[in-house]
């Protein structure tokens, strides 16, 4: 190798060096990345690597109280399923319940206690600091006899946590214990109290009914106990019985239950009760009711002839008489009412009228009808449920400086109360607002101290489903994973605060678990001799294992109607806020099947789950009748301004074939200003424009009684949805048959597609 100069040589050496390095790294990069095998220090009893462990617990994503089984692997929750031995869910679960995993593993969870500092931002503090600040204040107030200046506002909890809240507030001497949920059916409770004298809801036996008339109750998606109702629906439809159950839905906008029904009848909003009385009138007039109080009924219902009712409701008289006749002829039958029908100015009267229908055909206490529940075995208090008026009173008290401390647990009134309640400014008047939420929701964002709770999958609790399933049921909610963050159970926080204000003699329990065991002693005592012989610990373990406890004790079977009720029967026409001229449309806000009252909006799974009826994801929309839209020259995606007497929203149009022409519908659930990255600044919240129209008996918000005006903006957006062509177009994909197995027709192909995706 002649004549390599120094320069060349150095080049070669350099290149050689670099390439040796490159070769070295090339080999290195093909190696398996280093992984670790981290053993336990002491092997826990219930974790075997590679094997799943199942824990039974209770779902807290909505108030239904379904039993759940959670699959865990290596100490992490993997999947939530229904608990087979729990009578409410029977091994099944809805979408929101299954998405509870994303509440547990949500990246936007609050991870430690926080306090608002001088600049108005939150800074992290220790639990001792946070609990001391709150506990000292409570102790001071209690010692000064001013405990009544403390208010506790919680979501509608049941079980021993509710009892704990009660004793806590009793120790403070404060009557301001409020359970607040936007969707609590106040009018249903009041109507049942009026008609049956029961302060519990009855069990609606969908499974055995052969004809169901639902007045506005979306029983398959959001009303009371959707999973249990779905089970009943399936059984009634194609169960072991020879006769297929028939379902009729009466509501201004087709809900999931309306789509599932055999017949969907749009009645003018707020006239559902009048329609029910029209049916009742026809039943009696046709001589199909022969009770001793027949004449009293006839007198009370004299005005509700089919023709008069048809005039008021917009439902043809022939439909009314046909429904009434089949309601009598089909046994057992059942009428239920709720949802939007109960959220009008005449809500209680409407639901009383629905009860009257059940009474007249003898559905009460019958299998396949309406069965009374027994007294729950544990605390399932409903008397603290706060109506809209009660919340107004709280806000007013705060404005008058009568509240010193407000403790908020799991409820988000800033989001679920219309701004007319002025709750936000009320919070500003309260010197110490404490939030126990797991997430930074709109209300928590305004708190002074945040003591973040565990999610339900990390904490102890129990539940006595309300309404029950016709017999006594209870279930214990146990932690399925160890806490992820520096959070604590709600019950443990309350017990700690109680200790700090010197109530440990009355509330001596060190933890929620201990209190639960104490409380369940009473239920254990109800057991038979065999259970008692085994001792409490065995009983407790068996309840935890099964995830449910029950006894075959049913409620009242005898029922006699108070004659005064009959005379009081009658449904006044609904009142709406805003004049028909200025506000030609009636706003129908409905609970989103995905987000419930908005609590599900921070779960990415729920955001990307298409809305069942429209297939829209991620946003809000307003549903409009095709004809109305045509008249207003609106098409899908056109942005419109919705104006009520109390506010305005801008939202895209979705053409909805099954909504009354003078009604527009917006789902509740989106439109969060806080609540984490997935929920924030997405869509609109129709609660924000509701008028403060009240149902006078209960003082609850008549949330379906707001009139609005719709104006085009000329702007458009593309709705994010998965549905393609919304019609079958003769492809015969969904086939139908006329009766049990007898082919009559397939889907007609003459429909014109109204909405099509432009791609």
């Amino acid at each position, binding site marked *: 190798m002649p004549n390599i100069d120094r320069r060349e040589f150095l080049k070669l050496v350099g290149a050689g060096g670099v390439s040796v390095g490159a070769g070295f790294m090339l080999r290195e990069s093909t190696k398996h990345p280093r992984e670790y095998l981290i053993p336990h220090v002491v092997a826990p009893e219930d974790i075997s690597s590679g094997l799943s462990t199942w824990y039974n617990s209770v779902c807290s994503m909505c108030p239904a109280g379904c039993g759940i089984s959670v699959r865990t692997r290596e100490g*992490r*929750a*993997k*999947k939530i*399923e229904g608990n087979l031995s729990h009578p409410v869910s029977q*091994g*099944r*679960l*809805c*979408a*929101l319940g*299954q*998405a509870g*995993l994303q509440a*547990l593993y949500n990246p936007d969870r609050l991870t430690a206690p926080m306090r608002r500092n001088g600049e108005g931002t939150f800074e992290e503090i220790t639990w001792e600091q946070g609990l001391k600040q709150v506990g000292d204040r409570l102790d001071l107030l209690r010692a000064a006899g001013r405990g009544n200046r403390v208010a506790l506002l919680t979501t509608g909890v049941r079980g021993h946590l509710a009892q704990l809240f009660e004793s806590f507030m009793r120790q403070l001497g404060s009557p301001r214990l409020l359970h607040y949920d936007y969707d609590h059916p106040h009018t249903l409770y009041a109507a049942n109290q009026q008609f049956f004298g029961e302060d519990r809801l009855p069990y609606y036996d969908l499974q055995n009914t052969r004809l169901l008339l639902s007045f506005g109750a979306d029983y*398959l998606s959001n009303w009371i106990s*959707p999973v249990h109702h*779905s*089970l009943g*629906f*399936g*059984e009634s*439809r*194609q169960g072991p019985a020879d006769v*297929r159950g*028939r379902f009729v839905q009466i509501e201004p906008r087709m809900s*999931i*239950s309306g789509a599932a029904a055999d017949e*969907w*009848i749009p009645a003018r909003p707020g006239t559902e009760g009048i329609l029910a009385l029209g049916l009742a009138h026809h039943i009696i007039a046709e001589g199909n009711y022969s009770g001793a109080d027949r004449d009293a009924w006839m007198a009370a219902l004299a005005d509700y002839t089919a023709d008069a009712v048809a005039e008021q409701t917009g439902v043809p008289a022939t439909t009314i008489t046909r429904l009434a006749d089949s309601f009598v002829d089909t046994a057992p039958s059942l009428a239920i009412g709720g949802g939007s029908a109960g959220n009008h100015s005449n809500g209680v009267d409407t639901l009383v009228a629905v009860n009257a229908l059940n009474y007249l055909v003898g559905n009460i206490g019958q299998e396949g009808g309406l069965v009374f529940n027994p007294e729950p075995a544990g605390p399932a208090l409903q008397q603290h449920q706060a109506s809209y008026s009660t919340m107004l009173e709280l806000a007013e008290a705060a404005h008058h400086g009568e509240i010193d401390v407000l403790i908020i647990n799991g409820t988000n009134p800033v989001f679920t109360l219309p701004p007319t309640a002025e709750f936000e400014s009320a919070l500003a008047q309260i010197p110490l607002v404490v939030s126990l939420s797991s997430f930074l929701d709109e209300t928590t964002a305004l708190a002074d101290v945040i003591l973040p709770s565990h999610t339900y999958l990390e904490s102890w609790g129990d539940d006595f489903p309300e309404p029950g399933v016709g017999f006594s049921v209870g279930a214990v909610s146990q932690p399925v994973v160890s806490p992820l963050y520096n959070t604590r159970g709600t019950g443990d926080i309350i017990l700690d605060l109680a200790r700090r204000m010197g109530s440990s003699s009355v509330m001596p329990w060190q933890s929620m678990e201990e209190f639960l065991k104490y409380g369940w002693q009473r239920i254990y005592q109800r057991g038979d001799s065999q259970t008692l012989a085994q001792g409490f610990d065995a009983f407790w373990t068996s309840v935890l294992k099964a995830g449910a406890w029950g006894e075959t004790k049913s409620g009242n079977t005898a029922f006699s109607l108070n004659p005064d009720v009959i005379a009081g029967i009658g449904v006044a026409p609904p009142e709406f806020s805003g004049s028909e001229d200025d506000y030609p449309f009636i706003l129908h806000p409905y609970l989103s*099947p995905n987000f419930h009252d908005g609590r599900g909006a921070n779960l990415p*799974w729920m*955001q990307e*789950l*298409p809305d*069942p*009826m429209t297939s829209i*994801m991620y946003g809000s929309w307003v549903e409009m009748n*095709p*004809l109305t839209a045509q008249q207003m020259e609106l098409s899908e995606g056109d942005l419109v301004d919705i104006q009520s007497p109390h506010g305005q929203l801008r939202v895209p149009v979705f053409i909805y*074939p*099954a*909504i*009354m022409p003078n009604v527009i519908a917006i789902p509740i659930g989106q439109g969060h200003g806080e609540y984490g990255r997935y929920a924030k600044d997405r869509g609109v919240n129709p609660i924000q424009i509701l008028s403060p129209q009240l149902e006078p008996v209960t003082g609850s918000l008549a949330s379906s009684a707001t009139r609005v005006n719709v104006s085009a903006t000329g702007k458009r957006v593309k709705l994010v949805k*998965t549905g393609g062509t919304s*019609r*079958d177009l003769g492809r015969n994909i*969904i*086939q*139908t*048959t006329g*009766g*049990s*197995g007898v082919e*009559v*027709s397939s*889907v*007609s192909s003459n*429909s014109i597609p*109204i909405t099509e995706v432009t791609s």
Partner: protein
Amino acid sequence: MSLFSRFLDGWRKYRKPGYYEKFDYHWTMTVDLDKCTGCEACMMACQAENNIPVVGEDEVARGRELQWIRVERYWEGEYPNARLRFMPMMCQHCDAAPCETVCPVSATYHNQDGLNTQIYNRCIGTRSCAVYCPYEVRYFNYYDHGWDSPLEQQLNPDVTVRGKGVMEKCTFCIQRIRQAKDLAKDDDRRRVQDGEMQPACVQTCPTKALVFGDRNDPESQVSLSMDDPRSYRVLDELNTDSSVFYLKKVDA
């Protein structure tokens, strides 16, 4: 084997990919449209069980959602007689699947249990199978979709997390089938019993509209359900010989 019978055998296999004289198990699902309420609990169960990522608003807007099972909706009639009908649609596990013949790398094939299966690490992402599928139930990963920490702690360790460029679809929860078989083997090598194993969607369906089982067992719930006079298969005219039977909705 004579040359001719070998040819015939080959021809049959060509005509009917995944050709087996008889499947070991013949996993089949029935969907009762009269019971389905469109609640989408099945979709959520599938998403949780099978590590299906959330693709985000922008991707959905471009039609790139991932839904192994979806609920289709068809409107019929006009107000006030408008009706909405729902139909859960998932991979039909066709015994003569168009997608299987077209895959250039045999990443999708028919196995001895009558399942149309997809091997993720074999897939090279030509997307031909999605084009050939008449049910549009194959979904493609256009990106590596992540999970915002700590959401990944929920991931099911029995199911692969698919990467970018890979086609994926309903497997009838094959990981659950495998586990059921494993347990059955423990018990003296017996067969998997009816109802012992259910895919996540069937397991959670609140109205029990979905039924799953082995068609080879004439006593199984799914065999009985298949024989219902309302039973039909979607797009049966394409001779896909699918393993999902729908029970007609009753118009009463």
